[in-house]
Structure formats: structure tokens, C-alpha cells
């Protein structure tokens, strides 16, 4: 048993008051969860403290919340670990390294209804329905089962593992900037159909998601959703798979997303670093040919991107003069660019998908000291 202080962001919609913070003292074993702590506070101190919860075992997806600023499930976060994180965060900020409060807030990117309860219907579920979330096979089903590659089922089981808790949506930085972004959960759901060999509208789905200005190219690759996901679904990976599939289908989207990705990848392959000034040109007018004979779209796109470029200079993203001259990018120190190129080459050669359901494939040799105890 140990004592903890939960600092909960509360909102009582019928009180007429704005949201406020309230602290609750709880006492429980460190291996129990933050949700257990909240429920103890509710049972002992205040029955109006509201939180959705049901299974307590990270399978129903009800208790999405932010704990110490990180999106996840209340039931899957051990309170002892939450305390450690709170203390670590405080000590970085030159605060005390112990006895800090554990901060609990409702999920982000969603309206709050009451206390920790958010309106998932108007955000999360609306986006889920946006991706036509059901199988679209053609023709009559076979007499028996569809015969498919066994790996294909394991592959999409990773996105089937999603419990629709919304933690990824809560953490999504792109959605913060663009609330219309279809988002990590819905796009992971979309991959579940795109990757399903029984679905007959793969191409249509990919065209739709690639050409939507808030679709697969709206993701900025920040990894937040991967960190937040309590089930190892790795939504960003599913988005990247959608992009790859869209590339394979040669879908030249109106957002210039595919070209942008290609330009970026080529640049990393060749230079081992990003050249911000070149990126725009290469995205819209790739190579010498693109520049000698720029398409109308390229000119329009480049002109349209000028405000972005100017903002980049203003905010300091492209400060130094050399960075403004296309192609003259400062070298990174200590041969870092060569190392990046080597990493790229290795990744290209050993391209493999990280999938939680396949992870056990290669036996990891136990560490020597571990061997003795086994």
C-alpha cells in the first residue's frame, strides 16, 4: 500500500462553473491502476467523479484519458509507474523529485462532457464511419470460407486489435492542427480493410483516402499515436502501409502527397539529410525534367506553398542563408549524413513490418545473466 495524490481535471456541466482541478488522496498497491485510484476516490469521497470504465483489463477501451499529459488507458497505467513519471517530469522542471501529484485529464481532441468523459461520438466515431468501416466483398460469398494467405490475416489482426479507446486520437498532433484529419484510429481501421484480401474495393478505398486533403498524407509522422496506443496497433504504421499501398497503386493524389513522400525519401537516400529548400521543388517538380517542363499543377502548388515557405523563414525553421539556397545545405557534423544513408540502405534491404502478432519470429538469445535464472 502507498499513498498517492490524484490531481483530476474536473468539469461539472450543470454547475455553471468552468473546469477546475481537484485533488484526491488515495491509498493502494503500486501495482494497481490509475483507474483503480480514481474509482477509490469515487467510492470513498465523491460519487459524482465521472469516468467511463468497464473491464479494468485494457480490453473494452472505455477509460481513455491523459495521465501526466500522456494519452492512454487509466486501467493499463499502474499508479506506481504514474507516480514515477510525475516525479521524473517534476525533477526535470527543477521541482521536487518525489511526492508529486499524478495529473489526470480527459482525452484531447474531443469535447469534454463531464469530468473525464469526452464526446467520442462527434469526433472519434464520426471519423471511423468516414472510412466505410465494413468489408466490401464482391459477388456471392464462397460456399465455405474465403481461402486467403494465412499471413494476411495475421497482418490485419494488428489493426483488429484496436479497441477504439481514442488514446491515439487524443495524442494526435496533426489533428490538433487540422481537426478534420481523419486521424490515426480511423486510418488504422481503414487499413484493416485495405489489407484484407477479401475486400474488393481496395483501390477505391486508397483513392479516397489519398485524395482526401485530410487523409493519409495529413499525418506528420510524429509517432505520438504509437506511444499512446495501449494495444500495440501502431496506427502510424498502418497509415504508412496505406501510403505504401497507394504508391504501389500509382495513385497520384491531388494533395501532391505521393510526390512529397517520394521527394523526401529520395533526398534522404542521396544526401542523408533533409534539404528544406529543395523539398518543395522536388515535391512539385521532381528532377531536371520537372524543372525544365513544370506542369501547371507544379507551378500552382509551388506558388501556393510560398506562404508556408515564408512562415518557415519567419519562424526560424530556415534561418541561415545557405539553407535558403536550394541544394546548398550545410553538412551535418561527424559524417552523420553517411550514417543516415547507411541506415537507409539497411532498412531498404531488410524491409520488414513490425507486427505484434509476428514479433516472436526470431528467438532472442537471453542475456548471459538471464540464462542462469531460467
Amino acid at each position, binding site marked *: 500500500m502507498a499513498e498517492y495524490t490524484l490531481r483530476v481535471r474536473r468539469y461539472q456541466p450543470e454547475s455553471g462553473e468552468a473546469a477546475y482541478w481537484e485533488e484526491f488522496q488515495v491509498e493502494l498497491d503500486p501495482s494497481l491502476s490509475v483507474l483503480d485510484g480514481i474509482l477509490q476516490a469515487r467510492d470513498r469521497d465523491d*460519487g459524482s467523479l465521472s469516468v467511463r470504465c468497464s473491464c479494468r483489463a485494457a480490453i473494452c477501451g472505455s477509460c481513455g484519458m491523459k495521465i501526466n499529459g500522456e494519452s492512454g488507458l487509466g486501467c493499463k497505467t499502474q499508479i506506481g509507474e504514474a507516480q514515477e513519471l510525475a516525479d521524473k517530469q517534476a525533477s526535470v522542471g527543477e521541482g521536487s523529485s518525489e511526492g508529486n501529484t499524478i495529473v489526470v485529464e480527459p482525452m484531447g481532441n474531443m469535447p469534454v462532457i463531464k469530468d473525464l468523459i469526452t464526446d467520442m461520438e462527434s469526433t472519434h466515431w464520426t471519423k471511423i464511419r468516414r472510412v466505410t468501416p465494413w468489408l466490401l466483398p464482391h459477388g456471392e460469398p464462397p460456399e465455405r470460407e474465403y481461402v486467403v494467405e494465412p499471413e494476411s490475416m495475421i497482418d490485419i489482426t494488428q489493426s483488429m486489435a484496436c479497441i477504439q479507446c481514442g488514446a491515439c486520437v487524443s495524442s494526435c498532433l496533426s489533428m490538433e492542427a487540422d481537426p478534420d484529419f481523419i486521424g490515426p484510429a480511423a486510418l488504422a481501421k481503414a487499413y484493416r480493410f485495405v489489407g484484407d484480401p477479401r475486400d474488393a474495393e481496395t483501390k477505391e478505398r486508397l483513392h479516397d483516402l489519398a485524395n482526401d486533403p485530410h487523409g493519409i498524407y495529413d499525418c506528420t509522422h510524429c509517432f505520438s499515436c504509437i506511444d499512446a496506443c495501449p494495444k500495440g496497433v501502431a496506427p502510424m504504421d498502418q497509415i504508412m502501409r496505406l501510403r505504401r499501398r497507394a504508391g504501389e497503386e500509382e495513385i497520384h493524389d491531388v494533395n501532391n502527397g505521393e510526390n512529397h513522400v517520394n521527394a523526401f525519401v529520395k533526398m534522404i537516400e542521396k544526401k542523408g539529410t533533409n534539404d528544406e529548400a529543395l523539398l518543395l521543388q522536388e515535391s512539385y517538380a521532381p528532377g531536371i525534367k520537372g524543372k525544365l517542363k513544370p506542369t501547371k499543377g507544379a507551378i500552382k502548388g509551388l506558388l501556393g506553398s510560398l506562404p508556408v515557405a515564408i512562415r518557415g523563414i519567419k519562424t526560424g525553421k530556415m534561418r541561415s542563408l545557405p539553407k535558403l539556397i536550394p541544394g546548398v545545405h550545410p553538412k551535418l557534423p561527424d559524417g552523420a549524413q553517411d550514417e543516415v544513408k547507411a541506415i537507409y540502405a539497411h532498412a531498404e534491404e531488410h524491409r520488414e513490418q513490425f507486427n505484434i502478432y509476428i514479433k516472436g519470429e526470431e528467438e532472442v538469445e537471453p542475456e548471459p545473466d538471464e540464462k542462469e535464472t531460467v
Partner: protein
Amino acid sequence: MPTHDVLVIGAGLAGQRAALAAAEEGVSVGIVSKVHPVRSHSNAAQGGINAALNPGDSWESHAFDTIKGSDYLSDQDAVEIMCREAPEEILHLEHLGVTFHRNEEGKLGTRAFGGASAARTYYVADITGQAIMHVLYEQLMKHSERVARYEEWFSTALAMDENGECCGVVTRNIADGSMELFEAKSVILACGGNGQVWKPTTNALICTGDGIAMAYRVGAKLMDMEMIQYHPTTLAGKGFLITEGARGEGAHLLNAKGERFMERYAPNKMELASRDVVSRAEQTEIDEGRGFPDGTVALDITVVPRKRVHEALREIVLVGQDFAGVDITREPIRIKPGNHYTMGGIKTDVDGRTDIPGLYSAGETACVSVHGGNRLGANSLLDTLIFGRRSGVDAAARAKRVDQARPSKAALESEQANIDAISAREKGSGRRVSEIKLDLGTAMDKHVAVFRDEAGIQGALEKVRELKEEAKSAYIDDRGSIFNQDILGAIELGYMLDNAECTCIAALERKESRGAQYRTDFPERNDEEWLRHIDLQQGDDGPEVSYSEVTITQWEPQERTY
């Protein structure tokens, strides 16, 4: 006043399957659930779903295993229907998009499960329930024009017409606290089980026996309420489930001495005997001092190849990691029997009909009975789907046949008054709802568990009745309308206490040992007197007992060994 031909209460597998089946019949359907449908507890079914679909397997074999597993208390006509229709249901799910595990040829693959004479369990890693339920929810979204969804609406009572037929439900919209009387020609209760009556339990917090209690309160018969399954592998203290799939993949059970003790209890099936048998074996080891000091035995999954564990038992790798701090691929994990499943429930026929016209039930809420004294692993998902579908079809047929009765407003008014009364209780006038729940769960887990005797059950019953009195003055803090979970908790407590009382009465009544009911004071099965169901119906002083025959078609009761 929302009106539908068919109204389904509960949106787990049984409810969603019923709603889709009814909609296919062309009637208007509403589905009401106190949580968002994908939060329903069917999610928790990890291991899989049984069907005799492999060449060489037969529905008869599946049926026999089920009946033997039930300790001959299941109704064999119902079991036959379930096992015959199972293969078609699996294929239907596969066609809808469930990502069932494939064998090397790309066809459906199976795993072994407890109490089964063949490997006939179809699965999606160890998230089978979740995978099926999310696919059904996809179908609900697809057919949203035909099935209206009332997500986060809490049902408080059934509405009856003057002829004693069910014609609607009183429901509270959790989002704003408004009360509505929903009209329907057929009402299907598919609200799951009552595991929260016990503490600890593998069941979710929402499993409070709502449907069973609502039906009981309008006079429907309940059956087999004494039959409560204790699952052999749950985490001590927290009650989390470790799937039977682990033993299906070859994991061993060990006592503190490292002995594979199942050799002494079920030399042939070992760890894959039926759940009641394994739970009793574990409890005996623990009670006789061969368990660990924390009252557990060990489940050793390290004997299963790691690759296979990651592929097929991923979820329990996480459960071990997150909730027990154990890497199950490297060391055994401590487990014990824990409350898991309600075999009994609202008495129905094979089309989900209760003895109240217009009222149907399916899934764990219902008792057809296909599970009798003990449910086999991977038969619960099957039960929900087969009888969910059948009740949906029959409820639709009834809706086409009858006119909509007008439920009187009295039910709505009385429910509103009840809620106002709970809200009006002074703080400190009695105990908190949460304290009463804890007392209830503790008493039931102590006395109405793996081993039972008259004195213990009687004590539990007295405790339940005492708590029933106390519940009348239990107070809540939240007086608001929006998402008032406090008030829902108080109503759920009432449901739980009715469930508990019925279970105690039935467990006292059955003076023999059969399936999950093991009476240390009557340790033998007694077919002559007790090969019959115990039915309960609400009377003036609590549940009144009557009996009904067990339907035997072709499998005469035999001695049960594994």
C-alpha cells in the same frame, strides 16, 4: 416515444446478432445499450468459438462434449440445435469479415480447448470475442438505416400491457438523464451475466445482471441460477482472465511442489478437463496446503514455444506484463479459480422466447439451457450468436403478427419516482452504494463459490437480505442529470441483489453436486432426484421454487470422467 418492432436491450454479441437478424427480416429494430456497443463484455472472450466444421468432426461429437461438460443438466434439443448450426454461423462471420486464424492452406484453422474431444475452436489470436464483436458493430454501422442505435441508454424496467405481455422498456438517456418509454412488439434482453455479484470476478463492471433482474421483476421464470462458473485460471486479487487457450496450446498447471497435479484428478484430459473439474482440483490443492502462500497455483506457459505464444496468446502476454509483472514466456504465473460465467438466467425456449409473451432473451442473460451445470470453453460465443440470431428472427416474426400494444405510462412514472427517491436520500442516511457492493461480493465469493455447503449458502442468503434492506437507504453524491453514474450504480446494486438472492435460493435447493454446484454436504450427483432444472419466479417473499424436466434426446446420463 421511440417505437420499434423489435427492441434489443444489450449490445454485446447476442444483442448485436439479434438486432442484425431481426433487421434482415425487414422489421424496424432498435438496440439499446448502457455502454457503447464495442465496450460490451463479449470483448473479454479470448479463446475462441466452437464448431464442428473440420472434416472428420461431427456436430454429434460437439453436442456430446457439451452435454457431458454440462454434467447432463443441459437440454439436449437446444444443444443439438446449437451444435448443428455452429458451422454455418462461423462461415457467416467469416464472410462478414472476421479475421479468423488460417492454417497453412489458408483455410480456417483450429485450436484445442477444454472438455472437447477434437480441436474445433476457431479463433482470432486471443481476441476472438473482440474481433467478432467489432465486425458485428461494423455491420450495425453499415445497416444504420435499419437498426437504430441507442448508445449509452440505461434500461430500468420492462413495460407490460394489461394482458401481461411485454411491450416496451423504460430507459434513461445517460447523456442528459431524460427518461423514455420505448414501445416495441418484441423485446429481447441480451444484457450479459451477473459476475459483479462476486468479488473478485473476471467480469467487467457492467456485468450486473440487469436483464435477469428486469425479467424476474415482471414475473419471468429464471432457471439454473445456482450454476455459476469459476474459471480455473484467473489472476489472484484482480480476477483477470487468462484464457483457456493457454492450456489449449499446452500450458501446464503446477502446485507449489512443482507437481502437475491434474494427473490425480483427470488423468486423460489433464489440464483440458472441463472447467468445473479443473477449478475444483486447483481449489483442493490450495485448501490442502499444496498451493502457494497467496492461495494460488501456477500456470506454466513456458512449455509453449515463444513464437506460438506471441502469435496466439498475445493478449495474455500483455495481461501478465501489465497486471502481474510476469513475462509468461519465461516464468509461470500464479492463478486461482475465479468467478467467470452465469450458466443460469432467464428461462427460454430454443427461439429465445421466455414465458412472458413478447419477451425474449439470449446470451448469458438467458438460460436455454445449453450449458447446464458447466459451460465448455468457447461455447459461450457460440451460444450468443446462435440464440441471438434465433431470437432476432422469432421476435421479428412476432412483430409482424401482433399489433403494438400501448404500454401505460405508469411504468415510466414509477421509474422516474424511484430515481427521484434515490436522489433525495440524505447523505449519511445510510451507507454508500459501493460499500454494500463490496460486502455482497465478498460474501458470495466466500460461500457461493467452488465448494458450497448449506450453512455457508444460508449465511450468504441472510447477508444478501440484510444488504437488500440497507440498499433502500444507500445514498449517492451526484444529483445531476448529465452522466450521473452514481444513480446508475444504485440501480445496478438492486439488480445485483436480486440476482444474488436467486442464486442462493437455487444453490440451497439443489441438494447434490453437479457441474459448478459442488455441495460438500452432498458430494455426489443424484440423478434420481436432481436431474431436473430449478426454476425461480418472483413471489411475495422472494423467489419461489418450481422444477422442470431436463430434455434428453439421445445421450443418457453417464458417470463423468476426464
